[in-house]
């Protein structure tokens, strides 16, 4: 582990600093914010010497090594170059923003976003892992969204930010896909490995897909034609943001990506065709549009697009020298464009306008700023002795050596010169229109020079323009060589950074560009007139229109599938389930298995026929609800008989008692619901549902049959073997419930308790009124509870409770147990409710069912916890045998305490539900007639 890991994370920490520092003065805040990035810059520079000597620094922390996921960073020449740009220009922007932002802007928030963005950018350039690059890539999109929309009260800021996020975010998704395929092709997500697998990647079948997807990511980020439209709209951001994001960092991320993957992906015809043509188109389109902008920042934004196109074109040319030129232009463009944006910001700040039709003759008001802007602008135009000239000459030289378009290759230098002409023209416009050309028109403020320190960043950058322009190899030679070496995997060609190469063809092209540009600017009025014939189209409106039409289509699709109808959702879900099970069932060769079947007997057949008839009757009479309930109860009874028949007495007992409780519950509910279901389903729907239901039933039946006729390989032999010795009971089912899988049971009674409490709350505020008549308009009988029933059920109660106690006690060894005993008790109590009515019971049985549920769950949990006291695992059973006279030998087991908890919960839950529902029918409630 070395300091490298800290490089990106220092700024991340630093993004918190301004939030705390915002309470101090703005200068203090700016100063404190700058500390951590400055330390990071020093750290980066401390590695520079060794990198110039050809070293490569790497550091990684494994995360999920088996999936190739790690936190990995690398610092090579390319990363070094970009880190210096990001951190260096970032520091200047911090200083600049201190003076640019007004007192009403939240400077802490601004700095926090800015440093967050810095962190993201550093992450992109330092990452040594494909996925990680993408992660930081998306982080730059998000943090730039925050920065662009910093003045969120302005519509154009919000729209511009949204557009930038949409375009770069969509590109980011393409990039992710590309990187995943790339990693899959190479077999590793480590950048180090990918960079040296160029031949493998280029020969693989998925190469075209990878290139297109990754380039989509790069082009959207670097505002290449036809995705360039977002960049001018992002100019709604505060100018420091533009100076940072749109000169040196954000838009350069795409360029960086192409340079980073240059060894792995470049030098094929496909790469050449896509990258160079896109670059060329962007170069020309950007330059042309820039000329016609009236907004200062608009001009700079479009010139940025044009220069990005130039760099892209260079990266697409396929020669090593072109790649070197591209890297060199990255440096130069960052320097002069950042200073130009800052100058534009100063002009805006001190004159109140960015419109070049208003801004004229500022030379008189701010000569110092004007000089700086003019030098930077000249560099942008490619005037000799400035850095822009050098890389532009290299660019011209490379265009001359192109043969890739065959006999049409001469197009490239000609079009490059044309782009140069336009660049000179718009640079001249920036100088002449703003600082000369008459007097200012209707400016909101009288322009004046900016505060002293606001000029400092511009001065530094402009000085760099000059120094690099005059002593190129001395100042940036090493850096350029190291970055080019990283881009080309160490095979750097011989190049010369001299200012004067003699009277060469590229020099001629530069001269043509300079003279041509001045001529174009001189005759600009004709061009403007020509341009004004085109209908003005605002990319914002077009974009917004597209977004809205997509949203509308998506809405239409959603309303088609998701119309709020639960009935429809269930249908879709079931269809999906049927399709998925059916498709896998088809892989099963035969339905019947090897296992011998039990022979049929008359009783079983009778019961089965009864079951089928009752089930069908339930469906047929489902609109007459009472009838459906009666047939439903027949089904339930036969199911419990089936359990009894097939050796599951516990299940039979449970099913029987649950059946009683369920039917009583449904009858009670039916009292408050309509007695009949109206006929609503169209015949088509009935047929459709019948079809689906039969299909699903057929599938379930098939699975059931296939399952039963195949031999069983069960894990239950363990339970059978250990039931008596380990759990102390002979009823294996009960021992599983209270011992082996006691934790499950604990969970289940908890769910039961929660359901009951939920129901209690639902009932508590139910605003349903008692119906006074039945379905046919006959008033409900107001008779007292029949005396015969009252007497008999009252005398039955002790008997029922005794049975329940017996079932409970024997549960561990014979069919029975807490669940069943609880249900029997509930049925016994419910019978009292039915026979006597709620009021009668209320005064006699004073049980708080909620407390009962709580006690039940509590007792079960405690009995489980109790085993901890003896150093045993949770819910471990203890049991022993005792002897008492009269009774004889009997067993005591801690599982019985657990079972008692189950018993109490079941009784509590059942009674809480039924007693509360029943209470709704008491005479204390208003009937509907009384209400009216």
């Amino acid at each position, binding site marked *: 582990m070395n300091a490298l890991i800290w490089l990106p994370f220092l700024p991340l920490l630093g993004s918190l600093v301004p939030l705390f520092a915002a309470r101090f003065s703005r200068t203090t805040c700016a100063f404190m914010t700058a500390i951590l990035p400055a330390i990071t810059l020093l750290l980066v520079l401390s590695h520079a010497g060794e990198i110039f000597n050809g070293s490569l620094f790497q550091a990684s922390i494994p995360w999920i090594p088996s999936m190739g996921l790690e936190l990995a960073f690398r610092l090579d020449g390319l990363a070094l170059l970009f880190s210096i740009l990001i951190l260096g220009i970032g520091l200047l922007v911090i200083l600049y923003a201190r003076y640019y932002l007004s007192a009403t802007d939240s400077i802490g928030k601004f700095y926090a976003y800015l440093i967050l963005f810095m962190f993201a950018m550093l992450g992109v350039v330092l990452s040594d892992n494909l996925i990680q690059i993408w992660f930081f890539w998306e982080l730059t999109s998000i943090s730039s969204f925050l920065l662009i929309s910093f003045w969120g009260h302005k519509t154009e800021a919000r729209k511009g930010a949204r557009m930038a996020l949409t375009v770069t975010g969509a590109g980011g998704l393409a990039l992710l896909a590309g990187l995943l395929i790339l990693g899959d092709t190479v077999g590793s997500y480590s950048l180090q490995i990918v960079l040296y697998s160029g031949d493998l990647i280029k020969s693989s079948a998925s190469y075209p897909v990878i290139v297109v997807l990754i380039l989509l990511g790069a082009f959207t980020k670097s505002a290449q034609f036809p995705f360039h439209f977002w960049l001018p709209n992002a100019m709604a951001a505060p100018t420091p943001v533009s100076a940072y994001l749109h000169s040196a960092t954000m838009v350069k991320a795409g360029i960086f990506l192409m340079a980073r993957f240059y060894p792995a992906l470049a030098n094929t015809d496909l790469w050449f065709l896509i990258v160079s043509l896109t670059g060329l188109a962007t170069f020309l389109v950007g330059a042309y549009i820039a000329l016609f902008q009236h907004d200062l920042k608009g001009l700079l934004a479009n010139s940025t697009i044009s220069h990005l196109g130039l760099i892209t074109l260079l990266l697409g040319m396929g020669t090593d020298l072109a790649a070197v030129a591209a890297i060199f232009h990255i440096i130069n463009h960052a320097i002069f464009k950042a200073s130009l944006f800052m100058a534009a910001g100063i002009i805006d700040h001190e004159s109140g306008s960015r419109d070049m039709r208003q801004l004229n003759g500022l030379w008189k008001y701010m000569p110092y700023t004007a000089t700086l802007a003019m030098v930077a602008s000249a560099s942008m135009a490619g005037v000799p002795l400035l850095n822009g000239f050098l890389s532009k000459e290299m660019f011209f030289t490379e265009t001359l050596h192109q043969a890739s378009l065959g006999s049409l290759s001469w197009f490239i230098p000609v079009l490059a010169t044309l782009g140069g002409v336009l660049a000179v023209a718009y640079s001249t416009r920036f100088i002449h229109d703003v600082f000369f050309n008459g007097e200012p028109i209707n400016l909101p403020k009288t322009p004046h020079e900016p505060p002293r320190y606001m000029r400092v960043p511009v001065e530094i950058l402009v000085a760099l323009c000059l120094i690099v322009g005059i002593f190129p190899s001395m100042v940036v030679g090493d850096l350029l060589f190291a970055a080019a070496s990283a881009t080309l995997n160490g095979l750097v060609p011989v190049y010369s950074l001299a200012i004067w190469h003699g009277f060469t063809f590229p020099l001629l092209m530069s001269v043509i560009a300079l003279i041509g540009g001045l001529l174009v600017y001189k005759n600009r009025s004709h061009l403007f007139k020509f341009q004004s014939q085109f209908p003005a189209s605002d990319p914002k409106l077009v974009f917004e229109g597209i977004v809205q039409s997509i949203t509308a289509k998506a809405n239409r699709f959603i309303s088609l599938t998701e119309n709020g109808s*639960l009935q429809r959702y269930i*249908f879709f879900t079931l269809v999906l389930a049927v399709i998925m099970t059916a498709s896998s069932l088809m892989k099963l060769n035969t339905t019947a298995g090897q296992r011998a*079947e*039990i*022979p*049929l007997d008359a009783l*079983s057949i009778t019961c*089965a026929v009864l*079951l*089928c008839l009752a*089930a*069908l009757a*339930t469906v047929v009479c489902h609109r007459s*609800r009472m009838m*459906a309930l009666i047939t*439903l109860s027949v*089904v339930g009874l036969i199911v419990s008989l089936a*359990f009894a*028949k097939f*050796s599951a007495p516990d*299940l039979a007992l*449970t*099913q029987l008692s*649950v059946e009683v409780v*369920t039917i009583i*519950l*449904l009858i009670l*509910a*039916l009292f408050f*619901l*309509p*007695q009949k*279901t109206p006929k609503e389903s169209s015949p088509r729907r009935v047929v459709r*549902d019948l079809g*689906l*239901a039969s299909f699903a*039933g*057929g*599938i379930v*039946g098939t699975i*059931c049959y296939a399952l*039963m006729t195949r031999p*069983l390989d*069960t*894990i239950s032999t363990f339970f*059978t073997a250990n*039931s008596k010795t380990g759990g102390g009971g002979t*009823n294996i089912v009960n021992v*599983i*419930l209270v011992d082996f899988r006691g934790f499950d*049971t604990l969970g289940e009674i908890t769910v*039961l308790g929660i359901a*009951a409490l939920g129901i209690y709350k639902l009932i508590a505020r*139910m*605003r*349903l009124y008692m119906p006074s008549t039945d*379905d046919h308009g006959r008033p409900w009988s107001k008779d007292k509870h029949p005396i015969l029933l009252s007497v008999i059920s009252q005398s039955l109660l002790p008997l029922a409770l005794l049975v329940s106690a017996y079932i409970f006690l024997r549960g561990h060894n014979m*069919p029975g147990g807490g*669940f069943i005993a609880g*249900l029997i008790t509930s049925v016994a109590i419910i019978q009292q409710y039915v026979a006597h009515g709620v009021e009668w019971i209320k005064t006699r049985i004073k049980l708080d069912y909620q407390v009962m549920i709580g006690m039940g769950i509590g007792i079960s949990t405690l009995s489980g916890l109790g085993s901890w006291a003896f150093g045993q695992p949770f819910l471990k059973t203890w049991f022993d045998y005792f002897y008492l006279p009269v009774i004889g030998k009997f067993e005591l087991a801690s599982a019985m305490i657990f079972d008692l908890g189950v018993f109490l919960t079941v009784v509590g839950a059942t009674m809480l539900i039924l007693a509360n529902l029943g209470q709704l029918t008491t005479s204390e409630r208003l009937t509907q007639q009384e209400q009216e």
Partner: protein
Amino acid sequence: MEGMYAFCVGLLTACGIFLILRGRSFSVVVGLTLLSYAVNLFLFASGRLKLNAAAVLGESEQYSDPLPQALVLTAIVIGFAMTAFAVILAMRARADLGSDHVDGALAPPSRDAAPKNGGSR
């Protein structure tokens, strides 16, 4: 026997699903109950059908599989809780929305029909 059993399970499933697809909450609850019978029988059958083989030690020579039985036992009880919750929810929906349609979106019943059916506020 297995074939007949499977047929019954399939039929119960079909009946349950058909009722679940109906529009009124009460039919859905009845359908759910039918479906839970089918599911319980299905799960139980995964331990295979055996006659006279209760899973009580010492009662028979071979034992039926106790594990599915234990699972189904709790499933029956939980199934009751679920049915209860669904039906109370249906009542509450009728009280609050004035309709017992599962989509809750139908116009409330007219004033003339209301006293006949019990009804809402």
